[in-house]
């Protein structure tokens, strides 16, 4: 299931289970560590908050972790949608063997149980290990810690099982009810809708937690329909802090998890036979139509941004590979997802402060950091996904048509990143700042964010000499740890430091002028770096080989 799937790319990125599970666990690590200052006793003293109750204070964060657990687990199920049930390759390889189909069914259900168990443990292991420590670190009682740990463990694990089972149920029901061709056709739309739903669930982290403690029979009945509220209520009930309504909702979490799990297995059994026999025709061509809107957008972007034949061809190729390539979309989605998680945490953090920042004259540094964080992760996500090869054996086309001496790759990568980034920045800026703080702040802030982002794009693409997705790459580079460290430090400089500086500058708008020499100096540094590149640093490559320990001179071959 991890490596499989109808669209799995044999030549592309094989993340390997270890790295994949590491990536899935990372949001939990980041989120837990970011909370250290909130619960640290030193920070409480510095804040003058001597009557700090970790249990009460942890409610929004508990909600966030439950939402995160549901979202990441559901994302895994959506991502592996095509390989949860047998696909064409399974059918071709297994059907001719003298084995009963009930044996395949048993093996598939066992594999699904393993996957859901492993995902639930992996996605939550960091928060289970770190979050209770962070919250109860300043408390001396072991019982206090054990109760909190138990409640958190049960809450997030059941939330994971619930969300995976729910996606699985939707998949199996659709598979059972719809004709196979229609199922394949609407499959992508259903997945998009599910992604929108899980993002919406994550977005509720900003507003819903504050309502849970006061939830009663008559207040906002729609809140009681949210699964995240059920599991947070379960957590509160286990902590002994539930009122009758939250106790009832906690009970609902247990029943819903059990029912969804059983229903998922039943629908899986029911749809299995149909799926297995119809997967043989999974490769059959479905009638498709020309995408007129897509073509219009391409024409517009070509006219405005991409002028040369190489750029035009490569842009179409890049966008299609990003959207249709599984590994590429995963890498980009992971970075963007991490960006959304950290941005929403910043928003939640600023909204739960005693005095709402929204009412202040200027936005807080946390709110200013939102577009910077999104920009940082989108740029990095695109840059990293460009490295992930897709159908490498087909890259002979580019090898034949693109001159190795062409210096277009870095400029092309910069343009593509900019094309993806600008709409996000505009949308984020207009929706977040324009209505609350007016146009003046919005324009100044977005200008700074855009300039800083452009500089960052220049830096990340300075030695880029590949056509996106067409170059092989070694699975791990020797400097991977250093690169991850640089990414983390880069995030703090790009997002945290810049937003803090902006917050300081916005207190007196004349201070904004100080950005000019700083950004100008960085620009000159980048230009100097670009000029110092040699011919070999800019030559187009299609194979990135790991450095060899021993270089052979091939002296036996006479030229």
């Amino acid at each position: 299931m991890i490596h499989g799937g109808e669209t799995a790319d044999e030549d592309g990125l094989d993340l390997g289970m270890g790295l994949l599970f590491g990536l899935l666990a990372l949001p939990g690590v980041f989120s837990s560590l970011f909370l250290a200052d909130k619960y640290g006793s030193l920070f409480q003293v510095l804040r003058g908050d001597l009557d700090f109750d970790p249990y009460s204070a942890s409610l929004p964060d508990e909600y966030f972790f439950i939402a995160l657990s549901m979202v990441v687990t559901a994302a895994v199920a959506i991502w592996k949608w095509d390989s949860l049930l047998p696909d064409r390759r399974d059918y071709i390889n297994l059907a001719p063997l003298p084995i009963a189909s009930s044996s395949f069914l048993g093996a598939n259900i066992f594999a699904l149980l393993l996957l859901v168990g492993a995902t639930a443990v992996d996605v939550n292991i960091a928060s289970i290990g770190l979050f209770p420590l962070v919250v109860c670190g300043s408390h001396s009682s072991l019982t206090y810690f054990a109760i909190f740990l138990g409640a958190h463990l049960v809450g997030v694990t059941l939330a994971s099982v619930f969300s995976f089972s729910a996606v699985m149920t939707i998949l199996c029901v659709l598979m059972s009810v719809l004709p196979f061709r229609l199922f394949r056709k609407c499959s992508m739309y259903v997945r998009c809708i599910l992604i929108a739903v899980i993002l919406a669930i994550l977005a509720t982290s900003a507003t819903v937690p504050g309502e849970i403690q006061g939830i009663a029979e008559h207040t906002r009945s729609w809140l009681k329909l949210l699964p995240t509220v059920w599991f947070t209520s379960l957590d509160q009930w286990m902590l002994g802090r539930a009122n009758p309504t939250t106790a009832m909702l906690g009970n609902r979490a247990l029943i819903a998890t059990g029912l969804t799990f059983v229903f998922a297995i039943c629908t899986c059994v029911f749809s299995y036979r149909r799926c297995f026999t119809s997967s043989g025709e999974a490769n059959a061509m479905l009638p498709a139509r020309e995408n007129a809107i897509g073509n219009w957008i391409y024409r517009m972007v070509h006219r405005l941004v991409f002028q040369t034949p190489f750029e035009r061809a490569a842009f179409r190729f890049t966008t299609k590979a990003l959207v249709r390539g599984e590994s590429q979309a995963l890498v980009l989605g992971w970075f963007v997802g991490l960006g959304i998680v950290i941005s929403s945490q910043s928003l939640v953090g600023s909204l739960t402060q005693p005095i709402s920042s929204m009412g202040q004259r200027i936005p807080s540094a946390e709110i200013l950091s939102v577009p910077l964080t999104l920009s940082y992760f989108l740029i990095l996500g695109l840059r990293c996904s460009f490295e992930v090869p897709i159908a490498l054996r087909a890259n002979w086309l580019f090898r034949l048509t693109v001159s190795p001496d062409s210096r277009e790759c870095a400029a092309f990568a910069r343009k593509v990143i900019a094309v993806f980034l600008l709409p996000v920045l505009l949308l984020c800026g207009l929706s977040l700042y324009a209505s609350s703080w007016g146009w003046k702040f919005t324009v100044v802030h977005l200008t700074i964010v855009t300039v800083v982002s452009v500089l960052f794009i220049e830096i990340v693409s300075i030695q880029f000499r590949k056509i996106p997705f067409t170059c092989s790459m070694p699975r791990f580079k020797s400097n991977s740890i250093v690169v991850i460290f640089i990414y983390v430090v880069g995030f703090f400089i790009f997002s945290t430091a810049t937003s803090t500086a902006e917050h300081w500058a916005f207190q007196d708008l004349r201070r904004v002028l100080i950005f000019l020499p700083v950004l100008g100096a960085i620009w000159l540094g980048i230009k100097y770096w670009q000029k110092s590149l040699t011919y070999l640093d800019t030559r187009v490559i299609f194979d990135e080989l790991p450095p060899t320990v021993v270089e052979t001179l091939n002296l036996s071959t006479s030229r």
Partner: protein
Amino acid sequence: MVSLVARNLMKCYTSVPAVEDVSFSLRSGEVLGCLGPNGSGKSTTVRMLIGLSDPTRGEVLFGGKNIRMNLVAYRKLVGYVPEEANLYPFLSGLEYLELVGTLRGMDEPTLRKRIDSMLELFSLHPHRHSAVGSYSKGMRQRILLIAALLDDPELLIFDEPLSGLDVTSALIVKNLIKLLGERGKAVFYCSHVLEVVEKVCSHVMILRKGRVLAQGSADDLRQAAGQSSLEHAFVHLVEDRDATQTARDLADAMATA
């Protein structure tokens, strides 16, 4: 009149020669068939001709100039069908051809017109928006053929172009290759199928263990080997084991306890 000349080509992989001292010339209007058993160096030769692989020794000249001097300009004049139909499976047939045409610098109206007519002629028009990954082997091969012909190149290099094609498409392609030769294109044609080579090619070159074993017209080769057909001439020149006996041994091996 342009010509492709291979001069003393040699290619070594970790000091083992895959191709050694291969020389031939191909002029406009000629169809040169390249024959040889597996591992004889056909694909290595093709890779050097197309500039995907540097010869260890020797050179490839086109129009009298070493192709390495301006590879991009040379490749603009070459249409290539590789041995395996490796296409981008996530693109539709139409998108793939647009990618090829745009990379070759063709203007959009001409490109669209040619793609439409060629897709129609190769019976792919109804499937043009479907993903290449869902195409059969023959359909992928037809896409490769269209991609090679799209920009009306001077030189065509075909490596097993009939692989996976149905009878009708194979007939079309065989006639097309002959016609291209008659219309002044230079065609280099690699194949295992001797009958096709005999029918389509004006000249034949036989490779064995990386070396040119024989070269000339099909008639010359038949006469030189004293055989009635090119197939017999090929077996006489290349094969050093009895195919009938090997088949009998295999059938016996299947029944071994």
